[in-house]
């Protein structure tokens, strides 16, 4: 299909009334790609964490607080009881989750999700205060299917990893990552649809509920 490629590029050149860009202009544009400019950002009044909680709640996520590994487990146990769910969980195979003090009677599997899993627990890369979104990266320890297949989606987020704007996520990624992973998800509340008579219905194809567990210290 190189023929189509060449033809399209030729058409673009003729539409732009010029040849392929000269090396000097290309270098200028390369610089725009390697040191990106930020556009206007909404001002966030007050504290980032408080703003995150407001926005996440407005997007129909539930936000809980845990001050120790034991209290993370306790929060999850309570959630399972409240929603009449079996004490069974699929967790992302990442050390901080694996090493939580899971009780004997909790069935915990570490893997990607399957179609009939009810409950998943993962760990977020970051949180965005601007929109109350969780940021999840795919990888060996954080399978993407966990974010979408189970009915109940729980995610641990460190308060220190809450940033103001989406641009701050790009900065973190550039510091801590080489390129982007296969999938980067911003998750802002449970799955929903308004396709039947414009009435908003939670739990379309993805999770019906989202529980964000904020912790003080992580990684």
């Amino acid at each position, binding site marked *: 299909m190189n023929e189509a490629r060449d033809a399209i590029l030729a058409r673009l050149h003729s539409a732009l009334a010029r040849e392929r860009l000269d090396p000097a202009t290309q270098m200028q544009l390369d610089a725009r790609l390697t040191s990106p400019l930020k556009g206007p950002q909404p001002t966030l009044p007050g504290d980032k964490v408080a703003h995150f909680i407001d926005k996440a709640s407005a997007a129909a996520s539930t936000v809980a607080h845990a001050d120790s590994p034991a209290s993370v487990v306790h929060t999850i146990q309570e959630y399972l009881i409240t929603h009449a769910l079996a004490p069974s969980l699929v967790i992302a195979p990442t050390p901080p989750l694996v090493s939580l003090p899971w009780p004997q009677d909790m069935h915990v599997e570490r893997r990607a999700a399957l179609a009939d899993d009810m409950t998943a627990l993962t760990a977020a890369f970051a949180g965005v205060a601007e929109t109350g979104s969780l940021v999840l990266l795919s990888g060996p320890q954080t*399978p993407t299917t966990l974010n979408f297949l189970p009915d109940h989606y729980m995610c641990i987020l460190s308060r220190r990893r809450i940033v103001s704007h989406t641009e701050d996520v790009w900065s973190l990624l550039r510091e801590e990552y080489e390129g982007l992973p296969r999938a980067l998800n911003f998750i802002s509340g449970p799955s929903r649809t308004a396709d039947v008579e414009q009435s908003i219905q939670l739990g379309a194809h993805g999770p019906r509920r989202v529980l964000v567990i904020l912790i003080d210290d992580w990684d």
Partner: protein
Amino acid sequence: MKPTSHAFKANAAAALQDAGLQRALGNAKGGFIERRRRAVEALPEFEQLRAAARDIKDHTLAHLDYYLERFEARVTAAGGQAHWARTAEEACRIVADLCRAAGARLVTKGKSMVGEEIGLNETLEAAGYDVVETDLGEYIIQLAHEPPSHIIAPAVHKTRGDIAQLFREHHSQYGFEGTRETVPAIVDEARQLMRGKFVTADVGITGANFLIAETGSTVIVTNEGNGDLTGTLPRVHIVLASLEKVVPTLEDTSVLLRLLARSATGQEMTAYTTFFTGPRRPNDPDGPEAFHVVLLDNGRSDMLGNDYRDMLRCIRCGACLNYCPVYGAVGGHAYGWVYPGPMGAVLTPLIVGLKEGGSLANASTLCGRCETVCPMSIPLPRLLRQHRVREHEQKLTPPRARLALAAWAYLARRPRLYRQVINAAAVILGALGRRRGRLRYLPLASAWTRVRDFPAPQGRSFISAWRKQWGQRKER
């Protein structure tokens, strides 16, 4: 899909008579507008963002060749492959070839307007693949064998009853026998049915809201989560995107994302905003093994070179549809192809040709609300007017309209004769309508007077009234 845009007038007349459609349009009307208004009011930076977004897109379009080549290079570096398609047929062929190479049987699709534009489902079905739309709205219209009637709410023309009926007809084969009386019951049934499709599909096809030159990523913005399941579970992920979807950087995408959800649904951010970059990495436990991006031209390179370039800034938010009084009255199908409303009236003639689509340019009062709400500041009314001019130049307008215009032009170039004729008309019409102040019937304008009265003139033309007034003032 074969366009029927030339028949807008007849389509619109039928739509106005369709009680079910009018009920569905009535249901939808206020929601979008009210939600958008609230979201925009809550963001003082909205106008600043709009200006920045316009600049980003204008910059990208002026260097579109460069950014597409950079994007392609990054896709390749991430282990994916970009394919270029000049036309709808070429794009369909590429996708069908990829499906065949993958040994596919079941193909799931996330919502893609480019997919609608190229008629992909027909091609794949004809080639023997089982194709399932996974977005609930798209799925509903797939069952009904209809095109979308709105770019972000494809089944907005369907009532709950219509949907329940469609599910009854199509789902008993899967053993679903629910009553489907409530919205949750309908949504739940679709969810259960779709589960099986997601996990058994061989190829997943999604669209893209943005392509990012910096990283080679494709971005989808959804609420249901179906796009992510479509892109994540099958062995092969194919992304369909038209050329103008590319933006330079992640930071540029942040600006556009702030405008998109607010303008579309009034959300600050949709439930899911996902950046796909290449296929799964060596140690990843899930994700597709292959990642393809099909880059479609189909008229875009022409638009880049003519005076419709502004239209290439469109991010498909649908705000111009929601605010359009004509769209609100007749719905999307009257426009006769896949893109309705003001953006559709501009795009359709550019893609399917002025002869087929030109009449859409007249499906507008040029009231200007679309331009006011467009987050990308696209001068839609000006572009519609441009179509009208072109339609006239190419002699595609009906003979009667041309005759009337020619007669008017003849008079307008002869001011004295013009005044005489207008004065005479004003006197005659004024006399005819004196008693009631309005006219029930006008020869040559019966289509107008059939549904409304024509106000009778006061017996004097504007010019002569102005003269009199002006003349008096001058004397003083």
